[in-house]
C-alpha cells in the first residue's frame, strides 16, 4: 500500500497503460458559473454561480455542511437531480465534451418566477449524457447497500456494469465473436479481477451473493469496482464513507489513493467531514449555501483559511466546546454574500459602505496573488483584511488543559454495572450483544463509550436504563439495584436517570407542543400545579438556551439542533443526576454538534451531572469524557483515562486501530500503524478473543490462549483496564 500521494504536477502512469495528460491543471472537468434551481415556483436556488476544476489524476474534495448544495452540484452535472430536467445556467465540460447543452433562450428568472420556461435536456442531449454515464464518469453514493439492487447478485451487477465497457465481450454467450476482442477473458474473469483489485479477496465467493448478505464496507467496494468496470476518467464519490465505520473508512480512503495511482483516475470526493477531505484530497472546494466560497490546495486552505466561513467550519471541527454564533434564522438566498449573517468580518466591520457591498453584491472570486498556488481563491469582499485567523487554533486542541480525574479513586461512584450479559437471537443464529460488562461511573464525571456499529453500545445504554431486559448482571445506581425496582420506586429513579437519544425526531411526539412534551416529565411528581409546571418548563428551556416562547411550538417547527436541545430539556426538567447520552449529536451538522457539546459541558459544570456518553466519534468523546471505554463485539476491551487515550497511550490493539483510523487534522503518520492491520471484515468470532482475525499481535504470535478464551479485563498502572492475553501489566 502506498502511503504518499503523488506530488502535484507529475504525470500519472498506470500499470495498464492509461496515461494522464501532462499537467493536472489541464482540467478534465471544468464547471463555470453553474446555477441550479429546484422545484416549481417558487424556485429555490440550490447552486449559485459555482465554478470547479478537476485535473487528470487528481483527487479533489468538495466540502460543506448538509444543504450546502454540494451533492446537487455534482448530480446536477450528470442530470441526476430530482425533478430532472431542472433549471440551470452555466457551462460544464468533461474532457472537452459539454455536459450541459447550450442554454437556448432560458434567461427570465426573477424573484422566484420563471418568465420563459425552457425545456433544457432534449432527447439528443439525454442520449449524449447517457453515453457518458458509467463510461467516462462513474458515481458512488453514500448508502452502498441501498445502491445495490436487492434482487440481483453482486456478479449480475458486475456484468451489468461491464456491459457498459465496449471493450469487454458481452455477457451473452451467443454474442458475436467479433466482440470478443480483448484477450480471451470472459466477463466473469474480468469482473473477479476487478473485485480483487479493490481488496475483495474472496471475489469468487462474493460473485453469487446478494446485497443483503454483504456488509456495508464490502458493498461500497463492490460499488467502486463496478465504477471501474468501464475504465472511467472521473469518479464522483458522494459521501462515500459517511455510513461506514471508522476502521472501514480508513481502508476505503486508502483504496481511493491507490486507485488514483494505478488507473490515473480523477476523483471528486464530496464530504462534510474535513478529516476525510484532508486525508486524501490534494485540492479542496468549500461550499456554503450554494456558492463555492473558497478553493485551494487542501493543506493551505485548512491551515490558513481565507474565507470566514471556512475558518468557522474548521473551528467547529477542531474546537468543540466553544460557543458559536447560531445559524441565521432566515433561509432565503438573497443577493449579496450568503454568509454575511454569520460572518465575523461583516458583523464587526464599522465601515457601512464595506458592509453594503456584502449586502448587495455576491463576492467575486479573489485570486490570492501572494500565495504559492495560483488557483487558490476565496469569494469574500474582505479578501485583503481576512485574517489567516485561527490557524493556530486549528492545528491542535490545546493540550494545556489540566489533566482531569487525577485522583480517580476518591470520587464517589454513582452508577455501577456488574457483569451485564445479553444474548440476542436472530432465527437460528444467536450472539452475545453484551458480554460480562462491568464498569463504574463516578459522580459528576463523564464516562465515554466508543466502538463501531454492532459493538453493543446502545444495548448497554438501554439495559442500564432498564428499558431492555438483560440475561445476567446488575446495575447499581447510588447503591440501589435498578433492575429489581418496580412501581413507584422505579418512577422516582426514572427522574434521576434520564437518557438522550440519537434521533430527536423519534423522541418528540410530532403532535404535541414542546411545553406538553416537557410537562410530561412532571406528571408523576406530587404538588405541582399549573403555574409551577409552567415555571419549570420555562426554566428547562432556559437551561438549554431556548426561548420560553418555544414552548408553544410543535417539533416540526424546530431545526434539528433545537430539537435535540428540547430532548435535553425534556431530560433536565426532572432534575436528574445522571444522563445517558446515546449518540446525541450523530445526526446533526458539525456546527450544531459543537453547540450541543458545549451545552452538555456547561450543564455538567453548572448542575454537577454525570454522563455516560456514547459515540462512534472519538474526537467528541475525548472532549467530554474523563474515562473512556472501548467496546468491540459486545466486549469491553479497554478502559483508559482520557489523557492516555491516544494512539501511543492505548494498549489494546483494537483501540489503537480505532484511533489510527479516525480521520485526523494533524497527524498523517498514522498510516504506518494501519499498515500492520490486515484488511479483513469484522466477524463475530465465538470462543476466544473476537478480535483475533484482525489483530496483528495474534497474527504474528498465534497464541493459543487467544483462540480458547476471551481475555479478562486486567488492571494496569494508571487506572487502565485492558483485555488482552498478549499485553502484560507493568
Amino acid at each position, binding site marked *: 500500500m502506498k502511503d504518499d500521494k503523488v506530488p502535484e504536477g507529475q504525470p500519472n502512469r498506470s500499470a495498464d497503460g492509461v496515461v494522464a495528460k501532462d499537467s493536472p491543471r489541464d482540467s478534465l472537468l471544468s464547471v463555470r458559473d453553474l446555477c441550479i434551481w429546484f422545484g416549481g415556483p417558487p424556485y429555490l436556488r440550490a447552486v449559485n454561480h459555482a465554478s470547479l476544476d478537476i485535473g487528470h489524476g487528481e483527487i479533489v474534495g468538495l466540502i460543506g455542511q448538509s444543504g450546502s448544495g454540494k451533492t446537487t452540484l455534482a448530480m446536477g452535472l450528470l442530470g441526476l437531480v430530482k425533478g430532472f430536467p431542472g433549471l440551470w445556467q452555466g457551462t460544464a465540460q468533461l474532457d472537452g465534451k459539454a455536459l450541459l447543452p447550450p442554454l437556448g433562450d432560458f434567461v427570465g428568472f426573477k424573484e422566484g418566477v420563471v418568465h420563459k420556461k425552457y425545456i433544457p435536456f432534449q432527447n439528443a442531449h439525454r442520449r449524449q449524457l447517457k453515453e457518458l454515464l458509467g463510461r467516462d464518469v462513474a458515481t458512488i453514493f453514500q448508502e452502498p447497500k441501498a445502491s445495490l439492487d436487492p434482487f440481483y447478485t453482486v456478479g449480475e451487477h458486475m456484468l451489468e456494469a461491464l456491459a457498459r465497457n465496449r471493450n469487454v465481450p458481452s455477457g451473452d454467450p451467443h454474442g458475436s465473436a467479433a466482440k470478443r476482442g480483448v484477450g480471451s477473458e470472459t466477463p466473469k474473469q474480468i469482473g473477479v479481477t476487478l473485485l480483487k483489485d479493490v481488496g475483495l479477496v474472496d471475489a469468487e465467493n462474493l460473485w453469487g451473493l446478494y446485497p443483503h448478505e454483504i456488509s456495508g464496507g464490502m458493498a461500497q467496494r463492490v460499488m467502486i469496482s463496478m465504477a471501474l468496470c468501464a475504465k472511467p476518467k472521473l469518479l464522483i464519490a458522494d459521501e462515500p464513507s459517511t455510513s461506514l465505520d471508522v476502521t472501514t473508512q480508513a481502508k476505503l480512503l486508502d483504496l481511493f489513493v491507490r486507485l488514483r495511482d494505478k488507473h490515473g483516475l480523477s476523483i471528486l470526493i464530496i464530504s462534510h467531514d474535513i478529516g476525510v477531505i484532508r486525508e486524501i484530497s490534494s485540492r479542496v472546494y468549500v461550499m456554503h449555501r450554494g456558492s463555492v466560497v473558497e478553493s485551494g490546495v487542501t493543506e493551505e486552505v485548512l491551515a490558513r483559511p481565507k474565507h470566514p466561513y471556512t475558518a468557522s467550519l474548521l473551528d467547529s471541527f477542531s474546537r468543540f466546546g466553544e460557543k458559536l454564533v447560531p445559524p441565521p434564522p432566515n433561509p432565503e438566498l438573497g443577493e449579496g454574500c450568503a454568509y454575511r449573517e454569520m460572518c465575523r468580518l461583516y458583523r464587526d466591520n464599522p465601515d457601512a459602505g464595506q458592509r453594503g457591498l456584502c449586502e448587495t453584491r455576491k463576492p467575486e472570486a479573489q485570486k490570492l496573488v501572494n500565495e504559492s498556488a495560483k488557483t487558490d481563491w476565496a469569494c469574500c469582499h474582505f479578501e485583503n483584511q481576512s485574517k489567516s485567523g485561527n490557524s493556530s487554533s486549528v492545528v491542535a486542541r490545546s493540550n494545556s488543559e489540566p489533566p482531569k480525574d487525577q485522583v480517580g479513586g476518591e470520587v464517589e461512584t454513582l452508577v455501577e454495572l456488574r457483569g451485564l450479559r445479553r444474548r440476542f437471537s436472530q432465527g437460528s443464529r444467536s450472539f452475545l450483544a453484551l458480554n460480562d460488562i462491568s464498569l463504574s461511573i463516578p459522580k459528576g464525571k463523564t464516562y465515554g463509550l466508543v466502538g463501531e456499529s454492532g459493538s453493543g453500545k446502545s444495548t448497554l445504554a438501554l439495559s442500564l436504563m432498564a428499558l431492555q431486559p438483560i440475561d445476567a448482571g446488575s446495575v447499581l445506581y447510588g447503591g440501589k439495584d435498578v433492575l429489581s425496582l418496580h412501581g413507584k420506586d422505579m*418512577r422516582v429513579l426514572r427522574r434521576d436517570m434520564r437518557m438522550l437519544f440519537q*434521533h430527536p425526531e423519534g*423522541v418528540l*411526539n410530532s403532535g404535541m407542543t414542546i411545553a406538553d412534551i416537557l410537562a410530561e416529565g412532571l406528571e408523576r411528581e406530587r404538588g405541582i400545579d399549573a403555574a409551577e409546571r409552567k415555571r419549570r418548563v420555562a426554566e428547562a428551556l432556559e437551561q438549554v438556551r431556548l426561548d420560553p416562547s418555544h414552548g408553544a411550538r410543535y417539533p416540526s417547527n424546530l431545526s434539528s439542533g433545537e430539537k435535540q436541545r428540547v430532548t435535553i430539556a425534556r431530560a433536565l426538567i426532572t432534575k436528574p443526576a445522571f444522563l445517558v447520552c446515546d449518540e446525541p449529536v450523530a445526526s446533526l451538522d458539525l456546527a450544531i454538534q459543537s453547540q450541543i457539546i458545549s451545552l452538555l459541558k456547561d450543564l455538567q459544570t453548572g448542575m454537577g451531572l454525570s454522563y455516560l456518553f456514547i459515540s462512534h466519534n472519538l474526537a467528541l468523546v475525548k472532549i467530554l469524557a474523563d474515562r473512556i471505554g472501548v467496546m468491540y463485539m459486545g466486549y469491553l476491551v479497554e478502559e483508559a483515562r482520557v489523557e492516555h487515550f491516544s494512539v501511543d497511550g492505548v494498549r489494546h490493539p483494537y483501540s489503537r486501530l480505532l484511533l489510527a483510523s479516525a480521520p485526523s487534522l494533524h497527524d498523517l503518520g498514522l498510516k504506518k500503524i494501519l499498515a500492520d492491520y490486515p484488511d479483513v471484515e469484522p466477524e463475530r468470532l465465538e470462543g476466544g478473543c473476537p478480535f483475533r482475525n484482525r489483530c496483528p499481535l495474534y497474527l504474528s504470535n498465534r497464541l493459543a490462549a487467544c483462540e480458547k478464551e476471551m481475555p479478562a479485563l486486567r488492571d494496569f498502572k494508571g487506572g487502565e483496564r485492558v483485555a488482552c492475553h498478549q499485553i502484560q501489566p507493568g
Partner: protein
Amino acid sequence: MSSRRLRIFLKQPGGYRILAGAFIVTVLALATLTGRAWTEFGPEEMDLQALLAPPSIGWLRALLTTPEGLRIQQRNEAGRREGNRTPRATSGDDENLDFLKGDDGAGVRGRSGEGMAAAETSPPGNGDPAADTKARTHPLGTDKNGRDMTALLIAGARNCFLPGLVTCLVALGFGVPLGLWAGYYGGRIRKIVGTFNSTILSMPRLVLILVVICALEPNVYYTMGVLGATLIPRVSELIATRVRILSNMGFIVAAKEAALSDIKILWRHLFWYQNRAVFFIQFSLIMAESILVETTLSYLQFGTKPPEVSWGNIIEGSQMSFFSGFYWITFFPAVAIILAILGFFYLGDGLNARLAYREGR
C-alpha cells in the same frame, strides 16, 4: 374563513377533495337530521294523483330522456289526460329484460304487489291542469306508487347514514384498540391478531355477509355490524403498522424512559397525538364503504326491506325503468349513491393526502 386562508387551505394537498367531500357529507348529515322538513310529502305518503310523475325540472328531462322514453311519457300523459292508465304492470319474477319484448311490456316491475294494487285502484280522471299543478310539487317526480322521489331520497339518506355509523362503531371500536395493542406489544400478540385478520381477509366480504344473513334473520343494523367486523383487519393492520414505525423511531422507548405507564403511552402518544387523524380518515373511508355495501345489499334484497326506504332498494324496485322512460326512479338514487360515496371517499382521501404531507411522506 377569509378568502386568503381558504386559498391557502386549498393549495395544500387534498384541499379540493376535503372541501368537496365535506360539502357532500354535510348535506347528507343535514338530510339525515332534519329529513322531513325539506319536503312537502312524507316518504310513505302516496300521491295517487301523480303516479310516475316526471321530475318537474324541464331541462333535466329533455337532457336525459331517450326518444323512446319521451314517446312513452307523452303517451302516458295523453293517457292520463284521457283518464286511462297506460303503464300496465307485467308481473313475473325472472324477466329482467322484459322491456325488450316491446313497448307494451314497458312497465314497472315491483316485488310488492301492494304498490301496484294501489295504482290499480287509483281514481281515474285527473284533469289536465290539476296534474300540472300537482307535478310541480314533486321536483324529482314520483315513483310507481306515487311516492315523492325527493322524500324517498331523504329517507334513504337516513337509512344509509345510520347503518354506516354502526359499521364505523364496530370497525373502529374494535380495530383501533386491537391495532394499538398488537403494534405496541408485538411478538406473540401481534401474531395472534395477524392470524385472526388473515382468516377474515381470506373470505370475500360480501359472501361472508351473505353467510351471516343466511344464518340470522336479516336486519340491516346487524348486517352492518358484520361488515364492521370484516373491516377490523384493515383498521388494526394499519394502526399496528404505524405503531411499529413509531416504535422504531425510538418513540416508545423514549416514553418509557419518561416513566409513563403503558396505558398513557398507548392512549396519549400512540393514539391521540399520532393516530387521531388516521381515525377520522378511516371513519370517512369506512362510511363510504358501508354506504356502498348497504346499497348493494338492499339492492340484493338483503338489506333495508320495504317499506323502509334505501337508495339500493329504490333501484331494485324500479328495475329497468331506466329503459322504459321512467329514468328518474333509477337515476336520482344512483346519483345520490355515487355522490354520497364520492363525498366520504374524497373527504377521507383528501385528509389522508394532507396527513401524508404533514408527516413528510
